[in-house]
């Protein structure tokens, strides 16, 4: 970025001189939440004053079809989450992959894996974490018409890490196999929403998570999820269970405490 003469012809004009940089951080952030995320990150080169402002954004909303595209959406997601201030709670992290037919399933899985880096933040709370892949972003229609292809090419696997500090987690991603973490505790998780994924463990991962890993989980929703044969939900805290089109389900057992 080179600045030659014509960049700031009116700097001497008092009425046009920068005052916005003098605003306190919280007021700058109130402005920046209205600007697309990539552009906010790019404000970090405006001046020394702006280097760290974006790292405390009260909301991270990633969308791959934003007006200012980047070469790698996965790198952007990873970079932002890596660069975000480590002493601030991230209230909402919402990641939407919507660009039409732009990704293979494997690429979308890599983006999800970058996004899941947020899980490694064990010191600050993330209120809501959502990862949404539109069915048009990865070309699922082709797969569906060719049933034989489905048989011979196994879906890519997405490993869900443990999110110790996330309170609400939503994942909407058709055409991948989801593996739940076997260890770790979702200390703060109250809501879990999963749409469109496949399981190959018959439901063990979900059962294990609810019974052993989610001490304050209250709300479970599974929607159009494949490969769950048995749900055995034993929970002291569970208040709400919603199952839509869980077509492979053969047995359902719920033992929950009566709400007060």
């Amino acid at each position, binding site marked *: 970025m080179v600045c030659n003469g014509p*960049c700031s012809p009116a700097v001497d004009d008092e009425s046009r001189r*920068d005052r916005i940089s003098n605003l306190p951080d919280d007021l700058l952030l109130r*402005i920046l939440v209205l600007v697309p995320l990539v552009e906010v990150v790019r404000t970090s080169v405006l001046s020394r004053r702006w280097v760290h402002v974006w790292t405390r954004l009260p909301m991270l909303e990633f969308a791959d079809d934003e007006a*200012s595209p*980047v070469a790698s959406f996965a790198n952007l997601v990873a970079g932002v989450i890596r660069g975000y201030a480590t002493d601030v709670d991230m209230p909402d992290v919402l990641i939407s992959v919507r660009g039409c037919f732009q990704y293979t399933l494997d690429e979308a899985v890599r983006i999800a894996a970058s996004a899941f880096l947020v899980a490694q933040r064990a010191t600050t709370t993330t209120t809501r974490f959502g990862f949404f892949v539109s069915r048009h972003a990865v070309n699922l229609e082709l797969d569906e018409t060719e049933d034989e292809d489905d048989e011979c090419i196994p879906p890519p696997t997405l490993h869900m890490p443990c999110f110790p500090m996330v309170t609400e987690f939503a994942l909407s991603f058709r055409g991948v196999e989801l593996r739940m973490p076997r260890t770790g505790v979702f200390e703060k998780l109250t809501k879990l929403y999963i749409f469109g994924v496949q399981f190959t463990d018959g439901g063990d991962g979900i059962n294990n998570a609810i019974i052993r890993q989610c001490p304050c989980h209250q709300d479970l929703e599974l929607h159009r999820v494949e490969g769950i044969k048995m749900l055995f939900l034993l929970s002291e805290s569970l208040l709400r269970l919603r199952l839509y089109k869980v077509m492979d389900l053969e047995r359902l057992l719920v033992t929950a405490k009566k709400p007060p």
Partner: protein
Amino acid sequence: MAAPESGDGNNGAARMVTLISSDNTRFEVEAAAASLSQTLQLTILDGGGGGGDGIPLPNVDSATLSKVLEYCIKHAPAAANGGAPNATAVDRAELERFDNEFVNIDQSVLYSLIMAAHNLEIEGLQSLVAKKVADMIKGKSPMEIRRTLGFPDPTPEEQAEMNAHMLEYGWAYE
């Protein structure tokens, strides 16, 4: 003092309050307009600001306060209607026109308004000025933002820092 046309719970007459700017100018304004400020609303509900007392605003100068009150007076009727659910399209269009015109101002005035809207907690004005600045930033390259906001030219040292930073943050620029 003119009586309002319909009863609005104020026993007929619109109650007035006095606000005093940091440079000691007194502004008399309808309580309903001043109450758009969450900060002032409590004082006014407690009966403050009436008569010769006045509410001092040590953080807001008279030029800014006059501008803030212009906004409050324009928006008070709609606010009294609970966000004006039954406002006509014409009324809404008129408010929108007013808002657009209102923020068509020098950056120094804009800055003072942002600070005042924050200090006085005037929700609608806070959103309006935030959106104005966001619109000045949106869709621009950093260089264009610097020009729009009127940054001084970077020193060679700053420029070198920025270039290094852009390399480090390549994922945001490629």
